[in-house]
């Protein structure tokens, strides 16, 4: 069996194992839906200023997408990692031709598929329920690499957390501890203006910031509408995509080394 065959086999097994855990599937899609319903519909936005969400609804689409791009890979890969370790599956796989990076790539592809579907759902909900004004056009296809690279990045981080934590409980606690600060300090739901000036440069350290900025430049009309003298939104998106790609590569490699070859 070729390398593609090995990755495909691991991918199929991972996808079936996930799709047959109904509660996992349900909450993978229910979680972002409930976030959109609470923040987008119940709380709503107040474009005239003040309140929790002072920007127009479209501003927060990257935040809603970030919820699944960030939380789902972290928890899924982290949990899968713990399950593999507790069931001596890594020990078994270490005696098969499957390589560590092939394992992580296979599980990343499963996550890209799952999170891609969840992202489509979120996109539709935000447009339909929150009345967000989205800049529609071919440039929206760039959302695909944004989601894919974001998922790859956080799958790598999930593998690192899975390696560091010694149980499924530990993985979940570690994932939440990492994900919550990232979610709110990466230009997703909290605008930079709401942060102290001295802290704003810190947001540049979050990989999620480049996801949020890039997605926003593609979808948020106030950014996407070309302005004379300003950077072209697509160029802005590609710049952020390039940074995200580099970070994704770094985290993926780190995640590969986190997959145990020995006990």
């Amino acid at each position, binding site marked *: 069996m070729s390398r593609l065959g090995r990755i495909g086999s691991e991918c199929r097994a991972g996808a079936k194992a996930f799709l047959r855990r109904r509660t996992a599937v349900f909450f993978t899609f229910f979680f972002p839906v409930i976030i959109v319903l609470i923040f987008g519909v119940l709380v709503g936005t107040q474009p005239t200023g003040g309140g929790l969400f002072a920007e127009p609804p479209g501003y927060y689409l990257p935040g809603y997408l970030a919820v699944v791009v960030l939380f789902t890979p972290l928890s899924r890969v982290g949990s899968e990692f713990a399950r593999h370790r507790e069931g001596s599956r890594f020990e078994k796989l*270490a005696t098969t031709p499957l390589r560590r990076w092939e394992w992580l790539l296979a599980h990343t592809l499963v996550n890209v598929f799952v999170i891609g579907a969840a992202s489509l759902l979120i996109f539709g909900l935000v447009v339909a329920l929150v009345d967000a004004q989205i800049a529609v056009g071919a440039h929206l296809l760039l959302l695909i690499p944004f989601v894919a690279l974001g998922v790859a990045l956080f799958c790598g981080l999930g593998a690192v957390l899975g390696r560091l934590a010694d149980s499924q409980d530990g993985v979940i606690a570690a994932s939440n501890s990492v994900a919550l600060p990232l979610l709110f300090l990466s230009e997703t739901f909290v605008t930079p203006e709401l942060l102290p000036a001295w802290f704003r440069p810190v947001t540049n350290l979050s990989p999620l910031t480049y996801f949020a900025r890039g997605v926003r430049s593609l979808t948020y009309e106030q950014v996407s509408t070309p302005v004379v003298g300003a950077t072209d939104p697509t160029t802005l998106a590609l710049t952020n995509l390039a940074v995200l790609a580099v970070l994704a590569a770094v985290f993926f490699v780190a995640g590969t080394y986190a997959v145990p070859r020995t006990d």
Partner: protein
Amino acid sequence: MDAAVVADDVTKRYGDLVAVDGVSLSVPAGTVFGLIGPNGAGKTSLVRCLTGTTEYEGEVSLLGSAPESVDRSRIGLLPQSFSPPERLTVRELLGYYADLYDEARDVPSVIEEVGLDDSAETWYEELSGGQQRRACVGITLVNDPDVLFLDEPTTGIDPKGRRDLWTLIEELAAAGTTVVLTSHSMDEVERLADRVAMLADGEVVAEGSPATLIAEHGGESRLEIRTEAVADPLANRGFRVEASAGRLTLHDVDAAEIDDAVDALAAAGIDYESFTWTEPTLEDVYLELTGESFRGDDVAGPAEPAEAEVER
């Protein structure tokens, strides 16, 4: 005969704990090699060293290569507490692992070999404990390995399942597969292994064929007769007899001599309630060499009786 697995002064430490302490052994190709010892003796750690799934000190040769660089399609491993993805059917599970190799066996034939034809479409988590273990053994067979490491393969399996697996292992060995088997079930190793290494506190305390180890360290066979009679009539027939309250113990009696003893009892008109013949086992060897018993550690089910009791 070439050695399939060689360990030379292998040591495995977990911090201050020495799990494997300077173990050297050689497993000839095409044989079944048993690693026995109670929980914590170092069996699983040694298997990890031999398969390269842990860091270790010393030298290991697996099919002529270091374990880390051996052709992975030539080895199979069943880890001790292995639990594969639980919501795949038996067929899907074996297919999943088979597809990780360039060449693999026909999955239905492996399913048939481990006796799971009727459960092929059942999710792993819905199988009984014994069926799960058989599915795990099937997973290790999909690549038709030259060397197979089975770490306590019969744990949790019912008696029939155990015997089926024993037969399977015997067939694999007969077909030329080298099997390294760990167990704390003495009867299992005694039946299956050509050679045995006994581990205690990470060290090999004895190595050899089960028969040789028993002959050298197991002590003598005994025939215990529940009777109020005195020892003289049997002693006069050449038996070495020890008398205690309500019991005569004949030492060093092999199976062929039981009839002679019974004839002697009849000839002397001695009445008895029952007699029990006990032959030494690997457990006796272990007890003799380490001063420690396996009893209480054997979770694989009760040991096969090494004794025969007859009531009159």
